[in-house]
């Protein structure tokens, strides 16, 4: 877990992008709104998450880790910030594990005991976190390829079912607000970014900042692609579906695959378990970074004496 400079910026991007999209697919929709309201909520949530993450992104352009930077200015605040980030990341990991177990039970197992799936996913997540940044980065790229393949297949197979009929329906402000809050709370990716920075092998100090900017744009585009295709396929039914992407995948009918919802659900369940592992690793890394900063500071003092 303490390996340094072991992942590239592109691997970091893959991890963040996969974490973002898996939250988008696996978390259930609880707001019955329209397509227009869902798209607007997505855009607003992305902007809000970006604005909240600006300090992290600005520091990353300087090649600095924000936890270490805050610790350098004020040790107490540094510890508070790191512990708070670790708490948020840990809570996000638990939430992802819970949602992914519900997702798997409802879409793959057709009923059953979700805590078994929760336990297996938790073991996977803990194992992934223990294996470290490099293992996460390598497996992240593979999971992303699998997720991209299944998603592109679903989108292409769903083209005959797409219709713009339901796009013009207006939602309500309360549904928009609730959906926006729900989407903002699916975040945690920028905290992951901050926690993984010490492990990134950067050629220039600005490369991690550029990665964050690229992630911000890709996250918005990826979310839009998933949401819009589901809206175009499901029309007004989008608001009634708990997992719209999986519902849209159930229509995909290509070659000898009558439905792709099972395959899509299997891939995204694994991606969600991966996300949980990354969140747990990031939680530990945030605290470890401040701990290392404290010890390297103490070592310098001893050296000076």
């Amino acid at each position, binding site marked *: 877990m303490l390996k340094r400079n072991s992942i590239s910026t592109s691997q970091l991007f893959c991890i963040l992008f996969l974490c973002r999209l898996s939250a988008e697919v696996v978390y259930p929709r609880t707001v019955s709104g329209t397509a227009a309201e869902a798209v607007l909520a997505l855009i607003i949530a992305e902007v809000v998450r970006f604005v909240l993450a600006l300090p992290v992104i600005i520091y990353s352009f300087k090649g600095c880790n924000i936890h270490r930077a805050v610790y350098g200015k004020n040790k107490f605040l540094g510890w508070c910030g790191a512990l708070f980030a670790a708490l948020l990341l840990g809570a996000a990991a638990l939430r992802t594990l819970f949602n992914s177990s519900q997702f798997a*039970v409802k879409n793959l*197992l*057709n*009923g*059953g*005991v979700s805590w*078994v799936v929760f*336990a*297996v996913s938790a*073991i996977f997540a803990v*194992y992934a976190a223990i294996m470290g940044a490099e293992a996460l980065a390598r497996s992240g790229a593979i999971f992303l390829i699998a997720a991209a393949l299944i998603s592109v297949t679903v989108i292409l197979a769903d083209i005959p*079912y797409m219709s713009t*009929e*339901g796009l013009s*329906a207006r939602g309500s402000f309360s549904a928009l607000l609730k959906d926006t809050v729900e989407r903002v709370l699916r975040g945690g990716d920028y905290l992951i970014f901050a926690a993984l920075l010490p492990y990134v092998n950067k050629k220039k100090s600005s490369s991690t900042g550029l990665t964050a900017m690229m992630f911000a744009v890709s996250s918005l585009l990826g979310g839009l692609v998933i949401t819009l295709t589901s809206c175009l396929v*499901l*029309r*007004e*039914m989008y*608001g*009634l579906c708990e997992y719209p992407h999986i*519902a849209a995948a*159930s*229509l995909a*009918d290509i070659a000898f695959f*009558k*439905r792709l919802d099972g395959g899509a659900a299997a891939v995204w369940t694994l991606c969600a378990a991966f996300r949980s592992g990354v969140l747990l690793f990031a939680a530990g890394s945030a605290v470890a970074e401040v701990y290392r900063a404290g010890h390297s500071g103490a070592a310098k003092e001893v050296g000076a004496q």
Partner: protein
Amino acid sequence: MKKLVLIIACIMMLTGCEADMTELGNRAIIQAAAIDFNGKYQVSALLFSGGGSGGDTIDASQENVIKVSGEGETLSEAIDNISLIDGKKLYMAETKLLILGGGFEKVSAADALETLYFDMRCSLNMPVCCAESAEFLTDLQFTEGITSAEKPLALIENAHRMGVSPKTTLLDLLADSAGGRASLLPRLAPVRNGRGMTSSEDGKTAVLNGSRYMKSGMLSGYYNGEETAALMLMTGKSDKIMLSYLHNDTEQTCEAYSVRVVPEGKNWRVSAKFRTRNGGSLPESEQRSALSALTELISKTA
């Protein structure tokens, strides 16, 4: 690593997991379902059964379905009734066709449709049609196809390809219902029409007989074949039609394609291209007659 594998293996074996472990052979796979309402929900289902051939292979010359009926205060109760009668857990994700009966003129089928998708896991692209008495279709023993459900589905798909009948799926009904729109459903009716299509000696079979609208889950209206084809053109669901018209007092037929119908106040502006049934070109004078017949058909239906 070995300890971790051991722990995972123990969790999988010792949990007594209650996931739905019903094997496929113990499930009643519904191929077609006919639902009607007459004070209670009446469901007739064609269940796949390869038992006609005696086991492992499917004999296409056999019917390969059994019919089971059930009723209940709710659709779920009626379906559970079928499960009890058949002795197997029902599996509706492979249902090829849903037929709604005339009982849904007075009662909304919206709840039933939502139950079929959200609870029974029916596929969103399951075609839906209507009939005066839904059960008649499950009584017919079609001889073509591996199961009896395939023939009526083929009727609908062929007519849809020709542009003369709609093909409405469960998704269309649910989305239109949520959007406050009406959906056009193909209508099947019993007919005596030669022999061989079914195993019935009296030549009884099913035929597409126009369409009906469904709005807010309730069936309304009735449109014959010609009117249905015109409605398909007006709503943009089709852009071609085989047309009969009078030219120089002689009955002619042609194919109208790239048909566009645009409302203009109380009238309709119709534009189309015409060709013979064999794909050849049509003389100008005949095209004018054909366009006039097409416009008259649209106006009559509107």
